[in-house]
């Protein structure tokens, strides 16, 4: 995992988000797009994203940190992942 | 799949039975009233309904409901904001606001829903809810659905409330939440003191008047009347399912903007039918009756006083109260059940409550008085209590 740079990580998370949550071809999601606060991802569905991140990056994110705010964009998700990668 | 789950549930149900907590339902075949008929054919005097004003089978309410059936049909088949709002809903909302001296009212399918839907639209994670430890389950569920910070104080303990308010000063808004009358002990919330503390620590107050509306206060306006706080409490919730006719329905009444926000955002209001028109019509009639005369309130107050005085004189241990709930303390769980069974044989229908509904070793029989009771009913109940009390060694 150390090999992967930030942009690669963002691309990987973005791909997963689009595959898992976005059905509508008209919708364009970027790194900044608010996911939960704009209704693309409902907070119940976060659980699969969490499992994906934990498996993919071999990290453990405590439930208290997996908040709708922290998961609200690809950027913030990758920032969160990075905190746990570094440790 | 279901087979393994069936076994799992069967075990759990057995545990509930063994703990003596299994709830069996007694089937009633008559209308609700002072005297009811149960499925065995036995006629008994009912002392365990929330039928405080005796309106559950009141002729005028029945007539009002029947009239509304003819003019407004049976159901609305819609939520309020699509096509489920009738003129009767609007009228009842206004009448309830007048009754409680508040600015506006919003109706719900039940007070359970009013309490379940009041917190989330009004408070956020910046705010705090300070809640009495014995508040009703529906308040607890509403608080669980809200992101505000939670503080809890011991039942009616004003020192504890003050310390919790101090702890909660860091938040944007504070809301103190209390039942008006606590249903198991029948004690009235010390709203006067709560209001003082709310002013001192800059908090809003919410009172659930489910067991106090129609009952407490000289004209039955509830705990806010008892403490001379009419119009001063931000949020009152209440039910049409107890003193006010007993069918279904609940409401939140209070400050105009709060009610308006609930109409926009409160989930049980947005996603469920309101009360049917016939219930709204009976509600309107109920408020009119209670405004015209104080007869029912007076009779309930008289009955409560009469019953309590004689039970105390007979030697029973009774929790002091200004409500219509009379907790006859027996302390022992088994004894409370045995006593209820024997009273039923004497034709008196009451329920014994024990842990976990009430604290351990605080088992009791809860007697609920009603304006439907006549003096002869009360005398019969007191005689039965005295007889069974002596048989079981509760009375010397």
């Amino acid at each position: 995992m150390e090999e992967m740079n930030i942009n690669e990580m963002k691309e990987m998370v973005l791909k997963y988000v689009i595959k898992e949550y976005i059905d509508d071809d008209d919708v364009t999601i970027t790194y900044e797009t608010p996911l939960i606060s704009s209704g693309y991802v409902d907070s119940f569905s976060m659980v699969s994203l969490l499992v994906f991140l934990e498996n993919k990056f071999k990290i453990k994110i405590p439930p208290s940190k997996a908040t709708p705010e922290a998961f609200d964009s690809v950027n913030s998700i990758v920032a969160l992942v990075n905190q746990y990668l570094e440790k | 799949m279901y087979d393994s789950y069936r076994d799992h549930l069967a075990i759990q149900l057995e545990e509930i039975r063994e703990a003596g907590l299994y709830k069996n339902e007694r089937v009633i075949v008559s209308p609700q009233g002072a005297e009811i008929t149960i499925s065995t054919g036995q006629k008994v005097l009912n002392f365990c309904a929330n039928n405080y004003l005796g309106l559950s089978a009141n002729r005028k309410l029945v007539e009002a409901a029947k009239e509304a059936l003819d003019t407004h049909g049976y159901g609305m088949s819609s939520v309020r904001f699509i096509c489920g709002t009738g003129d009767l809903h609007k009228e009842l909302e206004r009448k309830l606001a007048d009754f409680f001296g508040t600015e506006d009212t919003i109706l719900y399918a039940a007070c359970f829903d009013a309490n379940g839907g009041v917190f989330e639209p009004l408070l956020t994670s910046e705010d705090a809810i300070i809640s009495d430890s014995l508040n009703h389950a529906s308040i607890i569920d509403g608080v669980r659905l809200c992101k505000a910070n939670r503080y809890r104080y011991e039942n009616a303990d004003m020192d504890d409330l003050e310390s919790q308010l101090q702890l909660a000063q860091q938040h944007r808004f504070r809301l103190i939440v209390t039942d008006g009358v606590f249903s198991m002990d029948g004690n009235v919330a010390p709203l006067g003191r709560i209001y003082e503390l709310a002013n001192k620590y800059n908090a809003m107050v919410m009172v659930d008047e489910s067991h106090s509306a129609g009952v407490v206060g000289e004209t039955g306006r509830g705990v806010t009347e008892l403490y001379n706080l009419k119009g001063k409490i931000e949020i009152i919730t209440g039910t049409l399912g107890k003193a006010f006719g007993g069918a279904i329905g609940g409401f939140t009444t209070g400050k105009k903007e709060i009610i308006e926000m609930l109409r926009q955002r409160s989930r049980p209001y947005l996603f469920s039918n309101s009360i049917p028109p016939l219930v709204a019509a009976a509600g309107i009639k109920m408020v009119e009756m209670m405004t015209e005369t104080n007869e029912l309130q007076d009779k309930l107050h008289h009955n409560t006083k009469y019953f309590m005085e004689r039970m105390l004189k007979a030697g029973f241990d009774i929790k002091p109260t200004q409500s219509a709930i009379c907790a006859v303390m027996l302390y022992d769980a088994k004894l409370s059940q045995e006593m209820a069974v024997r009273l039923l044989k004497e034709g008196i229908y009451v329920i014994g409550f024990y842990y976990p509904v009430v604290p351990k070793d605080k088992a009791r029989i809860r007697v609920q008085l009603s304006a439907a009771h006549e003096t002869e009913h009360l005398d019969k109940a007191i005689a039965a209590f005295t007889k069974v009390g002596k048989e079981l060694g509760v009375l010397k």
Partner: protein
Amino acid sequence: MSFPESIRSIYQAQLADIQHAGIFKEERFIHSAQSADIEVEFPSGSELKKVINMCANNYLGLSSHPDVIKAAHEGLETRGYGMSSVRFICGTQDIHRELENRVTEFLGTEDTILFPSCMDANAGVFEAILTSEDVMISDRLVHASIIDGMRLCSAQHDTFKHSSMEHLEEKLLLHADKRLKLVITDGVFSMDGDTARLDRMVELCEKYGAMLLVDDSHATGFIGKTGRGTHEYCGVFGKIDIITTTFGKALGGASGGCVSGRREIVEMCRQKARPYLFSNTIAPVIVSGVLKVFDILSANTERRDKLEKNAAYWRKGLTEAGFVLREGNTPIVPVMLFNAKLSQDFSKDLYREGIYAIGFFFPVVPNGQARIRTQISAGHEIHHLDRALDAFIRVGKKYGILGLTKDQIIEKHGL
């Protein structure tokens, strides 16, 4: 603090925001009984207007059926008005048990428990039967009341893409290690009018050892050959573990709901479901009315057959006129407009034409999928539908959307 101006003004500002966003909900006051023709006061204080109602959940036209009203009258006479008690203290009459048995028989389940509303049934069922060792896997478009019920339950929750059986299967695999798995769906989805693929879902649940809960509020009484619901329509009658449904829509429309299903699950709800334990059940007068509704539905399938015909007629008319509809086979027929403001303007113009139908937009439906949701009833006669269709066509012409595709409408009116 006796509500100082500081607090009042914060709520006033929030309310103003809602108004600016154009999503302020204004209520229309109906002065008549619910039916195809109603009398409405809107805006508040204005004179009564006679309109055709195209947005009630009065699917079977039973909300003001004379036999139901008569039964309610009799219920009031023989059973009184209220019970003033929860079920397990002194709030159970024999007719409550009778209704529970009727529902069980009608839905083909093992037992039934009544709730004050289906909102309460959904709010109470999950917590009563699942723990933190379990998982709930729900369709992403399930009703708000199910979401609230799941929020109150400590079991894990996950979702699958709307009606995607592949995605559901993925999720069943992902959660294979959980003790209990409960798959949750609406039978008919209220905003789109599409039906869940219950046949496939039953197969998947059997394959992966999961249970299935269906909220059939928009189906009970009229979907399926004899109106038993989505499970009948999908050929899996008797195979659903838990069905929740309402008496507040097709079945008379007054109030009340229930959980119907496996015996032990129902029993567990009776012991543990909080809205059941801590709230009055359905009032006797309402029970009397619903019992009569089941009499009517059991006698013949006339009403649901008429509803099916009406819905097909309405759908055909709109399609031929050139509207974009959501595909479906139910009396819920969404006329797609995509643009939120257009949906509101369209609804207002319809109202002027004497047609009452509401526009829905985000967040009730996804962004960019605003629509007028029409709901057909067995209470509608062909002349109602013809008049409504004329009005739709006139207003559709005004906005120049007839015959346009989705993309063309969006191009013309924006998203």
